[in-house]
């Protein structure tokens, strides 16, 4: 089955991102395909490579990057939500005159249409949020 996941909360404050990750890992282990993981609202903060959690804590961002790399996942950060919250890739930095980028490996920034497309292309879309 083809699944997509919507993550509406950032890491560390709400359990949403953790639950979404555990769900994604379980779905992949069962042989399902994940069409896309879409990060919206504060969920875009899952895509900053500048997080530095304590060593004995999970690294939510790099965990997504790693799962993405292993399973060729399409990890998409909503552009409008990202601009509001300062999640920047090279293209965005250039367009908006920013002096740095922080998008984590394996993530890409794109429009909200990607969420609608995920809903269209997937058999199921599951939302995690607050």
């Amino acid at each position, binding site marked *: 089955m083809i699944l997509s996941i919507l993550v509406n909360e950032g890491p560390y404050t709400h359990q949403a991102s953790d639950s979404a990750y555990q769900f994604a890992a379980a779905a992949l282990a069962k042989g399902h395909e994940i069409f896309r993981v879409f990060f919206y*609202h504060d969920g875009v903060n899952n895509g900053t490579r500048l997080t530095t959690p304590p060593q004995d804590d999970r690294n939510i961002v790099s965990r997504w990057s790693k799962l993405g790399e292993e399973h060729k996942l399409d990890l998409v950060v909503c552009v409008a939500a990202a601009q509001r919250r300062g999640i920047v890739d090279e293209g965005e930095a250039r367009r908006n005159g920013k002096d740095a980028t922080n998008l984590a490996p394996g993530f890409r920034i794109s429009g909200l249409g990607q969420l609608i497309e995920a*809903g*269209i292309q997937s058999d199921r879309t599951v939302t995690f949020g607050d």
Partner: protein
Amino acid sequence: MTTKKFMIVNRKAPYGTVYALESLEVVLIGAAFEQDVSLAFMDDGVYQLKKGHQTKGIGMKAFEKTYGALEDYDVTKLYVDQESMAARGLTPEDLCVPVEMMPRADLGKLMEDQDVVLSF
């Protein structure tokens, strides 16, 4: 393109959190993708439609007008949960747009009929 039934369920009040505003953006994009988009308002989500938002004092942009403009995007299915309205002392006259009032159980059935339910 495939057309699917998308229902956007709004259960949170406006301004206190960003969900109401960003959910509207999903509605507009869904309409742009020519999907069968409907909106449901339940629990504190019905406060999103309360007319007369004056946001100058809190320094935030009011988005009440967007609900009125949904019709221009062919988004005409706005369902409001009757029980949620009653619990908040609201009647359809208090709302900024015409909506279809629906008993909770009927709204539940309508949800079952959707392809994608996005909840904010």
